[in-house]
């Protein structure tokens, strides 16, 4: 598409999208039935079954953009020194500190150019050992352009390890040997530091989220091939590759809810769902928690009066944080009793983070809120200061220790690419990770 004037661009996009055929006569709040089950009046007049469509195009555009980017620098992979000692402290959902032996690393595909590597996800087992999943945008075209870089020295040097034979969108490592990468259809596991990967798939199921902590790895899966779609959880012992279903309460396992956030800490699990539009669900958000590795779940109310839960973060089996959408913006909620009761945090200094904001924390008082800025609070969310504001959009990944955390940026840079940012002082200062 060549450069166009705004009017010409507008005309082309109008032509491409077209105009809707509106069958209803306007909003009709009074027509909703008593129990809030509103499927029958949504799309009134049409009575049409929902149209089947597919997802997963975002990756395609990343690959499409990536294939067009040309960068000349070559990424030299250095030999990996023995890592320094690990830090200790609370774990976030994305990272899993543990005593970390030095793994023997197999050599993966080269990443052609440092600034052609677009980070997508990060997982860490200590302050020194972490893995970054990304796309090689300079030296690779086609579907299998995922790359996994590992550092054993806190990001000073990186090495590429083998990747699964397909593009993946998420990555978690429990320890230097055991890790999982996943796409929408497949979970790949490695038990030899990435030297080999084994696939697990579930027919007709889409993999929505995956986390590991303690003795298990957990996956949230939703049916994708039948009219009776349902979301459920599976777990596998970390060293076994034997997946078993977990029982979730009631109507979560129906069409009514879509998973929003899976968080784990030790044997504690917190799973947030949002109501699927048109599903008839009365509650817009639900949080299920388990303190016994998913054997039993309890349900908590969250985001009451808000539009739904946008983000959930587990600091410990007692302290949880959530960002709840109020429409355009997000409010911060917290729980100090393991998710039994969530309450909105009263603000003494306002913030205006968007409804898709993410939250992460290291304690019941210290948290980060990320949206169009990266904000930090040391008083339980009552006041905030801006840690980063460079025009990018921000997403907090999590904290490895009470000091070490990661965030991903998207947007504002000249190249319009993503970046991986790290803090080593509990979010007071952040620096962008480079891949030398």
């Amino acid at each position, binding site marked *: *598409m060549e450069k166009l004037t*705004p009017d010409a*661009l507008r005309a*082309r*996009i*109008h*032509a*491409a*999208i*077209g105009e*809707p*055929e*509106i*069958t*209803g006569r*306007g*909003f009709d*709040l*009074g027509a*909703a039935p*008593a129990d*809030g089950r509103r499927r029958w009046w*949504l*799309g009134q007049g*049409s009575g049409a079954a*929902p*149209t*089947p*469509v*597919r*997802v997963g*195009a975002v990756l395609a*555009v990343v690959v*499409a*953009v990536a294939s067009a980017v040309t960068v000349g620098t070559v990424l030299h992979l250095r030999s990996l020194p023995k890592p320094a000692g690990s830090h200790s402290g609370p774990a976030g959902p994305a990272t899993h500190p543990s005593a970390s032996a030095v793994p023997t690393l197999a050599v993966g595909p080269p990443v052609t150019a440092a600034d052609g590597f677009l980070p997508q996800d990060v997982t860490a087992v200590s302050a020194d050992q972490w893995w970054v999943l990304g796309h090689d945008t300079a030296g690779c075209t086609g579907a299998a352009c995922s790359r996994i870089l590992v550092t054993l020295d806190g990001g000073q040097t990186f090495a590429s390890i083998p990747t699964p034979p397909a593009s993946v969108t998420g990555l978690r490592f429990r320890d230097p040997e055991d890790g999982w990468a996943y796409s929408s259809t497949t979970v790949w596991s490695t038990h030899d530091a990435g030297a080999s990967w084994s696939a697990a798939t579930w027919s*007709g199921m889409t993999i929505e989220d995956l986390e590991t902590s303690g003795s298990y790895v957990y996956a949230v899966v*939703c*049916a*994708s*091939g039948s*009219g009776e*779609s349902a979301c459920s959880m599976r777990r596998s012992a970390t060293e076994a590759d034997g997946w078993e279903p977990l029982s979730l309460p009631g109507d979560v396992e129906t069409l009514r809810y*879509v998973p929003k956030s899976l968080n784990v800490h030790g044997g504690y699990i917190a799973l947030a769902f949002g*109501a*699927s*539009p*048109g*599903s008839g669900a009365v509650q817009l958000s639900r949080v299920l928690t388990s303190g016994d590795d998913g054997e039993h779940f309890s349900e908590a109310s969250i985001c009451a*009066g808000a539009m*739904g839960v946008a983000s959930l973060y587990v600091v410990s089996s007692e302290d949880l944080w959530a960002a709840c959408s109020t*429409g*355009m*913006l997000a409010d911060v909620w917290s729980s100090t009793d393991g998710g039994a009761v969530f309450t909105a945090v009263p603000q003494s200094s306002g913030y205006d983070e*968007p*409804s898709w904001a993410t939250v992460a924390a290291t304690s019941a008082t210290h948290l980060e809120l990320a949206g*169009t800025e990266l904000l930090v609070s040391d008083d339980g969310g009552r006041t905030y200061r801006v840690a980063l504001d460079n*025009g990018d*959009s921000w997403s907090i990944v999590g904290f490895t220790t009470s000091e070490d955390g990661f965030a991903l940026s998207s*947007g504002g840079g000249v190249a*319009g690419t993503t970046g991986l940012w790290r803090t080593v002082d509990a979010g007071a200062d952040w620096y962008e990770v480079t891949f030398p």
Partner: protein
Amino acid sequence: MVFAAALGGTADESVQDAAEFEARLQPLYSEAIRLAYGMLHNSTLAEDAAQEAALRAWRARGNVRDGSELRPWFLAIVANCCRDVRRSSWWRLGGGQPAVEFAEPVAPDRNEHREAIYDLRDALRRLGHRDRLVIVLRYYLDLSHEDVAAVTGQTETAVRARASRALRRLRLDLASEDDV
């Protein structure tokens, strides 16, 4: 009426409140449907998303801050509903089949540009939610950067950057196709 009563107050009061709120939303109906259609490209799903947004707005009407406008707040809710639709089970029902979200036909007078229009539709479909939202708000609903910023909760500068980046992605995506 029972529904209204369940939301608080007497049945009569709640029905009246609902009617008043509905009247405030009605001027936004067409715009809400068009936003949803721009995001979902299916008329039925667009109406569903807009209706869902209306109900969510009614439930959370207390969140409309004093002095703030209803329009950007409500359009943001519509956008959130569209995002949830794209994450919902229905959206996945197609499995690995080709997407049919753009199945509604090109207008007859555009037939001579059909291929180029379909290419642009596909490229729009491949944009991420946030990029697509900015493009739809700016170039389909013809909102100003200021109004787009109000809906997306971003600064105008961030909106301009995102729009620029999204257009760049469209161009790159179309680079392998014939230019439209």
